[in-house]
């Protein structure tokens, strides 16, 4: 479902180049739940951005759901992002003047879905994260965990093939973190493919496969026995 071969990426820093990714090879199958680990500067965020079509590789190939992702213009990239990918950010990135329901419906808006249908979908996904009663609340009226759940609902709204989470629990306390991870595990159980960037071993242990990055190369890639978490909401 996701295939990366010999991927390189550097950023210009002044006159020199910072080689961030030095030949990444990665295959992810449908239904996997993968943690990408590494200290800051290891290149994990860059990799996630390239996978998320938010950034472009310098060389190497990247195929997502049998579609080669290369030399896309912004318009095409936007369509692919919308169709293939759902994003969950560390800082939630909800739009603060839109209520929970509207936030969830936003990707569908960009898909061109009619309003009524869109809100219906959004309500369905909001119910899935257990926040239907909070539909009309603004992000500022929600707790951190609730915000992240709204963000997850938003990421799921467009029925993406791949869910990308960048430190999804980074801004949450451990109880809430567990709650979010439990929910992500449930999603995975339903067959969703998940890619989670984290630096916490505890979080990584809750996935099924851990990939460790160091200085731009994969130093370890192993399947693990998933540590199941129970949501104690």
């Amino acid at each position: 479902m996701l295939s990366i071969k010999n991927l390189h990426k550097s950023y210009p820093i002044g006159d020199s180049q910072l080689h961030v990714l030095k030949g990444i090879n990665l295959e992810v199958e449908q239904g996997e739940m993968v943690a990408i680990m590494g200290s800051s500067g290891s290149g994990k965020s860059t990799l996630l951005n390239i996978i998320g079509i938010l950034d472009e590789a310098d060389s190497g190939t990247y195929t997502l759901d049998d579609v080669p992702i290369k030399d896309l213009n912004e318009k095409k990239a936007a369509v692919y992002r919308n169709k293939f990918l759902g994003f969950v950010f560390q800082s939630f990135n909800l739009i603060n003047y839109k209520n929970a329901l509207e936030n969830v419906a936003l990707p569908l808006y960009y898909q061109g879905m009619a309003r009524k249908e869109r809100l219906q979908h959004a309500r369905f996904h909001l119910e899935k994260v257990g926040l239907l009663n909070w539909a009309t609340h603004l992000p500022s009226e929600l707790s951190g965990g609730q915000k992240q759940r709204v963000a997850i609902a938003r990421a799921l709204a467009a029925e993406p093939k791949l869910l990308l989470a960048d430190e999804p629990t980074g801004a949450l306390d451990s109880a809430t973190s567990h709650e979010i991870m439990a929910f992500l595990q449930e999603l995975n159980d339903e067959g969703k493919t998940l890619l989670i960037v984290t630096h916490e071993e505890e979080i990584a242990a809750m996935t099924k496969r851990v990939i460790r990055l160091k200085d731009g190369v994969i130093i370890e890639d192993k399947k693990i026995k998933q540590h199941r978490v129970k949501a104690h909401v």
Partner: protein
Amino acid sequence: MIKYLFERDTWQEVLGSMSKNKLRTGITMIGVWWGILLLIALLGSAKGMENSFNKFFGDFATNSVFIWGQNTSRPFQGFQEGRRVELTLSDAKRIEENITGVEFVVPRNQNQAQVIKGTQSANFSIAGDFPLLDLVQKKKMINGRFLNTSDIENKRKVAVITIDTYEQLFDKDEQAVGQIVKINNSNFTVIGVIEEDQFDNNNIHIPFTTFQQMYNLGEKIGWLMVTGKSEYNIKQIEEDTKLLLRNMNNIHPKDQRAFGSFNLGKEFGKLTGFLKGMQFLTWFVGIATLIAGVFAIGNILLITVKERTKEIGVRRALGATPFEIKRQIVTEAVFLTMISGLLGIITGGWILIAIDAMFGQGLDATLVNASVPISVVFLALMILVALGTVIGLIPAFKATSVRPIQALREE
């Protein structure tokens, strides 16, 4: 695109982001609102001033010059300097025949006379006039008629009086036409009452020939008024006329003081020039203000785009194309300019109404019918929308030139 404009979501997005940024929305709107308000108020006032000038001059032939005789300042052909020059009817006839571009020549005489009506008695300025006067200096009749050729031919003792004169001599609501008044001890029949005229301070008009006889003037005339056809230069007519008059009256061709004159056309030209200049200034100031306002919008949008970089990044991560982002920002800009422009037009209209109420009432109003043609209003609105689009494009391009990844990194 049309569909886009009528979608509820479009406006929800626009209004959402506008109401979220109330301060910048407010400031921007004030900028454009003030610009268009100023434009309308200024243009309307300028128009009002122009109208009031036009009303002031009314049907008066502005392309005209008044000429009267004075004393010579140079000796010529045996005549001493200092000789009194007096115009005659034959001068008037010659001017009419020989000067190109002349439309009418109107000779006039005037004097002071004692006028008695019943027990009322007062001194009035009295003029001997031809019916022609009515053509160059339209007399607004309140009652009766003006002098006619038959009055002239028969040297009739008839008089046309102004409304002020009427009020001094007659009782309120008294019928003046047909009544007898005594002018210098002769009985005159009042045939008409006219409105006051800024350009004619005579109270009573009687036939030219009657006046001649009454004061025993012979061919002499006090002064004359020459009007030019509109396509001729009144300055040239004035020069030509004076030269002809000097030739006919044995006056040195370069004697500038022998005839006095007042060139109304020239003065009027200055005035219309002034008005034109003021109108230009008004447009200039108005449009400059407008542009400044629109630039303020652009500037503030640009700032908020920077503020909203993250939001724009999120939207793009969720699948918004750069076009959709641009479209939203441009829509916001156009909507802002439109709304504030319309508000400016409305309040500008109120100001014109207020101006009209304060300065536009009464006979000697300083600003008559201060208004702006609807076409100008629409033009201004079009300019606004066009500028709004252009100015909206700048932050829109700025917003989409940032890669979403960078946008999301912004903290």
